């Protein structure tokens, strides 16, 4: 990797940042230009992510495909960005969700408030940055960028419900940020570095006192990520706040809990791998225990859900619990299965959030609700939605909605033949095949039972809610669907189908990603061995 290509790694951060900067001074009345810049930005990110998914796999073994030293400082001192297969896959997932959510938003929802496009781009920048960075404090900064944008997006459209949900969401995340900082501070004071790879290298050589301080710091830091990845008992905020947001925002929020999971997976395998000596597998029983508790909570939540949005919130929690349990279980094949499940469930939940917005349109009251929102916004003299809704209406709207609903049901509940089933099945196989101690044996069996029950709960609830919606003919309104709204839903579901058809190659790719995560020595050497591009005169 040489020449201009070495700089491509910063593009996932720079592209949305530049787009956001260009969008800030633009007037809200120039909707088309704003939407065009936003779409251009997400398409560029998608192209970049596709490039990196291919480029990351060209590397033999476990080394990162690219390491970028910001400002060209020497390796452990510089804030470094690193990209391996896992990062590339997450970047791709984010770009895909962003495309779908943005196209959906342009049809209508970006008009119910100001600065939607700016905040959306900043959110993407924060998420991409969190995936790329290899520095703990830099990770904090990107988390804050992501969260600050998400506060704005959650409040998009205003209204009493959103402000109330936003208030809770912001307060909880501010506390989480404080906990994050405490964890980083303790880990720094014990290890003397903020570079994750450097931390992993230094941990084995620490004295007992420092090692315990480091473990304490790691545990505190983990609490912050557990809050963000919506793990019981730190997740009561999720169904309310995700449900209160407008549909495209909920859809892109589906990946935000996965950012927490990503960091836990990356840091835990990197720092507390086999090379960590006495600290190896630190906290594994906690991860498994909390994951199983989250899954149990999600089962009850799903069964009790009385509307689609609450159900979707609890299915986000169910996938968070499944993924967390899978981190220490099943070795590298377990991690690969978990990543596959992550892809399928994130795409499906995002599609479901978008679909719910269309489903609610069948009922009468939701149309009037939207009208009220737009009116109240107009009354403040902020925006004039003079254009009619964009795009062409698609035929056979009811058939499309019912079909999309059925496919979402199959994925979310993990029924064959779609990707949800493949993911869960791979998880179960790898969990059962793992060699583990007595506690972990019980945990594995509990995991198997809970995964099956969670699928059952999802099927039951979705069937119940679906019957109430589709089989009560007299309440039906003929829904009006725009191509820009049905398209993203169909595309996301199409991606899940594609994921099912290409399960072999995808799982192979993820297996290579997981192998690299479980043998972090090459990653550490790659990050710390990076050489500055300039040398000698003019360097500080």
């Amino acid at each position, binding site marked *: 990797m040489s020449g201009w290509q070495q700089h491509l790694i910063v593009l996932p951060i720079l592209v949305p940042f530049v787009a956001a900067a260009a969008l800030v001074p633009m007037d809200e009345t120039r909707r088309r230009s704003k939407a065009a810049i936003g779409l251009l930005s997400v398409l560029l990110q998608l192209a970049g992510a596709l490039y990196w998914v291919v480029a990351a796999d060209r590397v033999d073994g476990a080394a990162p495909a690219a390491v970028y030293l910001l400002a060209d400082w020497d390796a452990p001192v510089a804030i470094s960005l690193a990209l391996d297969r896992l990062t590339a896959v997450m970047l791709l997932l984010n770009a895909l969700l962003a495309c779908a959510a943005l196209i959906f938003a342009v049809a209508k929802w970006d008009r119910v408030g100001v600065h939607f496009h700016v905040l959306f781009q900043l959110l993407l920048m924060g998420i991409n940055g969190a995936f790329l960075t290899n520095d703990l*404090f830099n990770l904090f*900064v990107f988390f*804050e960028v992501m969260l*600050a944008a998400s*506060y704005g997006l959650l*409040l998009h459209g*205003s*209204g*009493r419900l959103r*402000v*109330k949900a*936003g*208030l*809770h969401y*912001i*307060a909880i995340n*501010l*506390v989480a*940020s*404080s906990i994050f*900082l*405490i964890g*980083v*501070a*303790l880990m*720094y*004071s014990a290890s003397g570095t*903020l570079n994750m790879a450097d931390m992993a290298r230094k941990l084995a050589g620490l004295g007992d006192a420092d090692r315990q301080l480091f473990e304490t710091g790691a545990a505190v830091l983990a609490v912050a990520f557990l809050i963000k990845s919506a793990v019981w008992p730190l997740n009561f905020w999720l169904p309310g706040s995700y449900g209160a947001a407008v549909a495209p925002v909920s859809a892109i929020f589906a990946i935000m809990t996965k950012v927490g999971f990503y960091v836990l997976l990356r840091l835990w395998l990197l720092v507390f791998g086999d090379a960590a000596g006495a600290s190896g597998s630190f906290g594994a029983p906690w991860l498994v225990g909390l994951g199983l508790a989250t899954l149990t909570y999600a089962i009850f939540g799903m069964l009790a859900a009385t509307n689609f949005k609450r159900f979707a919130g609890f299915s986000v929690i169910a996938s968070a619990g499944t993924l967390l349990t899978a981190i220490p279980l099943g070795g590298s094949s377990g991690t690969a299965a978990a990543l596959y499940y992550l892809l399928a469930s994130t795409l499906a939940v995002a599609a479901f959030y978008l679909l719910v917005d269309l489903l609610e349109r069948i009922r009468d009251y939701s149309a009037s609700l939207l009208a009220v929102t737009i009116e109240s916004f107009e009354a403040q003299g902020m925006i004039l939605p003079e254009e009619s809704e964009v795009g062409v209406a698609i035929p056979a709207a009811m058939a499309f909605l019912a079909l999309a609903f059925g496919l979402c049901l199959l994925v979310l509940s993990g029924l064959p033949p779609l990707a949800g089933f493949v993911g869960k099945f791979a998880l179960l196989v790898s969990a059962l095949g793992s060699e583990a101690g007595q506690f972990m044996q019980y945990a594995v069996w509990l995991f198997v039972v809970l995964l099956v029950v969670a699928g059952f709960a999802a099927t039951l609830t979705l069937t119940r809610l679906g019957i109430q919606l589709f089989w009560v003919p007299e309440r039906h309104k003929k829904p009006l669907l725009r191509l820009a709204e049905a398209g993203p839903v169909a595309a996301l579901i199409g991606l899940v189908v594609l994921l099912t058809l290409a399960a072999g190659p995808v799982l192979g790719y993820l297996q290579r990603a997981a192998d690299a995560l479980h043998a972090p020595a090459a990653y550490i050497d790659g990050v710390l061995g990076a050489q500055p591009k300039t040398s000698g005169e003019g360097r500080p």
Partner: protein
Amino acid sequence: MELILALAIGVLTGSGIWLLLRPRTFQVIMGLSILSYAVNLLLFAIGQLKADAVPVIAAGAAKAAGDYADPVPQALVLTAIVIGFAMTALFLVVLMASRGLTGTDHVDGRKDADL
């Protein structure tokens, strides 16, 4: 010096958490501010406390690590202060919006009589 700082961090954290758990939005935001002060002090203290030590090594000066303060925590705390300040301001706006929409400063937007 260590004891005073440790006590200060402890008292600030305790007060912050207590205020955070109160049902009024104003108390919550005060709690969050105080908690962020405590965290900033902790961040500042992780590089070990030293009086009369500069973080920047001058050209030609003696280079014994013990003579200098760790510059990293100072840089971190500066960033943390800026971010914390911005978030507090943002939270304040949401708080005002909530007060305006619900007519009460209860965190759940309900008047005491409804509870």
